[in-house]
Structures are given as structure tokens and as C-alpha cells.
């Protein structure tokens, strides 16, 4: 059920094909000089039409969000009497919302908010999920405990998790980050646990162990770099999941705190005006879709690059 709003995530549930099948790992030749090879493979993956389109979509939006203060002279929170004016009128390039705020600057600032949430939450999820995976591979009992914890986290639909966390911790970016982290933990954790288990028993790791490498050195120098493939791909997927989830939470009214603009919040606010002012909904719809599609293209490109 982990894939509810995050229908983008192609892996954690029981359903789709085993995308992170360990078989895709590099051969022994690659293992000799892991690092340089990895960089090349990913780069080659990204330098395909798929990867370039993805990078362009995300890059343009990222740039627009970061450069928001330069691109618009309107304060995103300034309200005026010109409510719901159409694009181009009263000095508003993309019109205004129901309380007379400039929609373009709100849209640009909402990308910022979104990216901030995503860029904090995904690495945090990776870190905690990874740490748990490391704990899991140390001992059988720890493994069972960690796996049950993953099951538990996966078994709640993400929005229900969102509602509960928000009810406890209050509204705002903090709650969204928490929810995203909680959802990413099992997907990163399961993936890393599986990868570590597989690579730990590969010949090069065994060879290194015989050659006197300690467990930590073994892990950091030999196992983790080789287990990184699915993780790099999953980071891109997780980012798109995070974008979707932020939108969904703000959409049902438990997201970013007003008056700060957020993509889902704008979308949900635009609903009553869909008939008379459809342009209002168009902006957030396009941006969310572009971000999600872009991030998935990047993930796909990385995945292909890694398998080559």
C-alpha cells in the first residue's frame, strides 16, 4: 500500500517487477575500479534524450524557483482588490488569486517551498533508512525487528500517516518532511538491506575479507559503492514521490502553512474557480506534472545507465 499517492514509485510494494533485482549489479571487472566507472555510467545514462529532457524540466523549474525574487517584482503574499483577474491584466502576468495575490510569484515561490521540503526530506529518509539497513544486517534479531518496522510503516496509507502526523505535530513543513521521511525509510531501507546482503557474499567482498579488511572498511570500500546503483535511482524516484505527497497533503488541507504558497495548496484553492477561472488551476497542475515527469525521466535514465 506504500504506493498509494505515490503511484510513481515503481518498487516498494509487492507489485511491480523486481526493478532493483540485485542481478543488475556490475560484473567482476567493474568491481576492480568501482568509483570512476560509476560516475561514467550515470553520466552516460543522463546524456540520453530521456535524461536530458528530465534534467531540463527539473533544471528549469529549479532555476525558476531559486530565481523567483529576480523573475517577479510582486510580493507573493501581497493582497489587493484585484481578485481573480485574468492573465495579463492589472500588471499581473498570470493573473491573481481569490484574494488578489499575484499568481505568478506565488507559483514561483511554491516551487521553492516544494524543493526545500523535498531536498531536506529525501536525504534524511535515505540516511535513516540506510542506518536501519546497516543495523538489520548485523544480527538476526535486529533484522526481524527492523523488517517488521518497515512493514508497519508501509502498511499505513501515506495520507493517513500524514493526517496523523499533522494532528500530532501541527500543520507545516515539519510535518510534511516527517511524513515523507517515514515513507522513504522502508523503501530505502529494504533496498539497501537487500543490496548489502547480496554484495557481502560476492567474490570481491569475500576476497577483501580474506585479505584482512575489517568490517567497516569492507562496508565502506567494497559493499556500499556496489550497492549504490539502485539507491541512486531510488533517490530520483523518492524525490518525485515527495513532490506528489507534498501536493496531496496540501491538497487535502494539511500541508504547508498559509500564507506561504505551495503547489498542492494552490491547486486545492483553485478548485471552486475551475469553471470561471480555469487558468488558476493550470499553473500548479503544469508545474507538479513537469516536476514529477522530469524526476522520473532522470530516474529512468540513471537506471538504464547503471544497467549498461
Amino acid at each position, binding site marked *: *500500500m*506504500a*504506493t*498509494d*499517492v505515490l*503511484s*510513481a514509485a*515503481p518498487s516498494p*510494494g*509487492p*507489485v*511491480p*517487477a523486481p526493478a532493483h533485482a540485485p542481478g543488475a549489479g556490475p560484473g567482476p571487472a567493474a568491481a576492480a575500479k568501482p568509483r570512476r566507472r560509476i560516475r561514467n555510467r550515470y553520466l552516460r545514462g543522463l546524456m540520453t534524450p530521456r535524461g536530458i529532457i528530465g534534467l531540463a524540466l527539473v533544471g528549469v523549474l529549479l532555476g525558476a524557483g531559486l530565481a523567483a525574487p529576480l523573475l517577479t517584482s510582486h510580493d507573493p503574499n501581497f493582497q489587493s482588490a484585484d481578485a481573480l483577474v485574468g492573465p495579463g491584466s492589472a500588471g499581473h502576468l498570470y493573473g491573481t488569486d481569490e484574494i488578489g495575490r499575484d499568481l505568478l510569484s506565488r507559483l514561483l515561490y511554491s516551487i521553492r517551498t516544494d524543493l526545500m521540503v523535498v531536498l531536506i526530506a529525501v536525504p534524511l529518509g535515505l540516511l535513516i533508512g540506510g542506518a536501519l539497513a546497516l543495523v538489520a544486517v548485523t544480527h538476526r534479531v535486529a533484522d*526481524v525487528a527492523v523488517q*517488521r518496522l518497515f*512493514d*508497519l510503516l*508501509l*502498511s*499505513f*496509507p*501515506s*495520507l*493517513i500517516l500524514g*493526517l*496523523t502526523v499533522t*494532528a*500530532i505535530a501541527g500543520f507545516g513543513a515539519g510535518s510534511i518532511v516527517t511524513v515523507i521521511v517515514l515513507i522513504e525509510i522502508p523503501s530505502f531501507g529494504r533496498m539497501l538491506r537487500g543490496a548489502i546482503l547480496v554484495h557481502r557474499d560476492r567474490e570481491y567482498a569475500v576476497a577483501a575479507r580474506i585479505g584482512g579488511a575489517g568490517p567497516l572498511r569492507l562496508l565502506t570500500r567494497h559493499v556500499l559503492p556496489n550497492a549504490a546503483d539502485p539507491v541512486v535511482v531510488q533517490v530520483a524516484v523518492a524525490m*518525485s514521490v515527495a513532490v*506528489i505527497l507534498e*501536493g*496531496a497533503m496540501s*491538497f*487535502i488541507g494539511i500541508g504547508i502553512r498559509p500564507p506561504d504558497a505551495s503547489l*498542492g495548496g494552490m*491547486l486545492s484553492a483553485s*478548485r471552486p474557480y*475551475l*469553471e470561471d477561472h*480555469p487558468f488558476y*488551476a493550470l499553473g500548479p*497542475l503544469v508545474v*507538479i*506534472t513537469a516536476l*514529477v*515527469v522530469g524526476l*522520473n525521466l532522470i530516474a*529512468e535514465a540513471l537506471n538504464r545507465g547503471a544497467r549498461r
Partner: protein
Amino acid sequence: MTGYLLRRLPSALGVLLLASFAIFFILRAVPGDPVATLAGSDPSPETVAAIRADLGLDRPVLAQYGTWLADVLRGDLGRSYVIGGEVSELLSQRIGKSVELTIGALVFSLAIGLVLGVLGVTVKNRAGQAVLSAINAISLIVPAYVSGFLLVFLFAITWPVLPPGGHVSVLSDPQIGFQYLLMPALVMALPPAAIVARYVKDGLLQALGEDYTRTAKSLGIPHRRILWRHALPNALPPVLTVLGMLVGTLLGSAVIIEAVFAWPGLGTLAEQAVTRRDYPVIQAVLLFMVAVFVIVQLLTDLAYALIDPRVRLR
């Protein structure tokens, strides 16, 4: 096989028990309680105390948990504090509506997936293939609220032929009910449709490579006939298995879809119950969702075990 099931069962039950414990205690850590909603807009301290005692909320939390768990094991889910009515009745009504939506979505995803999958095999030119894979990718990744908004805009506003939301039971009024079902079921069906399409395409390609199809071809049987009469029936069983596994995913995506289309299913019930702190209802809904997840996982593992005997030995 039974042995394998027996070995897997304790951990499934463990997750359920763990979940029930987590749900119960986390809920009580949430600020605000059902009494606030029940006490109306001008309550005196006596009102609040009387209601709290009436609901048994003045007892220690652990004792409350014990009572609740014992009741649940006896099959008694209790009575809703705020929404009203027996929790079991509430739950079964909403499950009915969620099932209606889920079945609709399954049918759609099968239909769309079959069409896309078969096209994936029959369309030969590059442009066509590119369009197909784009459609596949888009339906897999576009968030439900985005596709929902687009459908509402297209078919409820620009070209108003369908209601933008709400629910009329298909059983009580099939014609009207179907119109209410169409958009939410379609939105829900999109991501699984893409997955089905992939399985259909892979299955077809595999079947078309098998001996019997090659033989049929050499006998001069038309390609179309081979595809429909021989390859497709062989590609279907794994697709149906996948579809079964997708049920859990669909139930999860229900929350946002129900919010977009005002569909009064389980997700809406969960949202109502959480915002009003209707403890017995939240506990039952969440426990049900966890149970569905656990069962689906168990069945999935079982299916894998059936396919691959090595799993059983692990």
C-alpha cells in the same frame, strides 16, 4: 505449502498486533479529543467531565487498550463516539463503497492495460512505440489529483457530461451510479493499467516466441488469430495475479481520490475520524487497512512460493 503458511503467519499477526498497539497509543498522544467535538460550543467543565466519563476516557490508557483489544478479538468494534452508529456498520458500509470503486478501477485497469499491452506488440513503427511508452509512463506517474483535476475540468466543466463528484450506488441505480463511478475509477485505474500493460506485453512477446505459436505461424494461421486465440490466453494468468496484488495499492490511493471526487469510502471515513478524534472509528479503519496490507503481502509471498519452490525452503 501449509507448513510455509504456518511459518509466515506469526510474523503477519505480529505486524497486526504491533499496529494495533501503535495506533491506539499514538492516537491518544494526539492533542484534542472527541470530547471537544461532542461538548458543543458552550460546554461547562461538568459537561466535559460527564462526557469523558461516559466514554470511559478517564481510565488509564493501558486499561482502555486492553478492553478494546478484548472487544475486537470478540468481534465487537464498539460504537463511534462522534460520527455515530456502530463502528462495524460504518466500516462495512464504507468498505462496500470502496470495493465498488476498487472493482471499477480493476475492470478499467484490466481493459486499458490489455489494449495498451496488445498495441505494444502489434504496433511496429518507432513513433507508435514511442507514443505508447509515453502513455504508459504518464499514466504510471501522474499523481491522482492531477489526472482527477484534468478529468473534472474536461468532463464536468468544459463538456459537462459527468458529475464532478459524489456517489450514487451502482447497485441501486446502475445508470446514474455508473456516471458517478466513471471518473474516480478511471483515475484510480491509471497507474495499475500501466503495470498491467507491461505484463501483457511481456507475456505476449514470450508466448509469441513459444513453439506452438511458431508452429501455428508456419501452418499459415493469420497473425491476428494467433495473437487473440493462442498468445493472449497464455499471457493472462500472470496478469490476473498482478491485478490481485494491486488491490492493496488501490485501497491506499483511495484516500486522495475520494477527496478529489467526494466519494464516501474508507478514506473519507478515515479523514473524518482523524480530524474529529473519533477513536473507535480510526482504530477500526486503520486496523482494517493494515490487515488488508498484511494479507496481500502474505498472498504475494504465497504466490511466489508456489511459483518458486526455493522460497519455501528459506
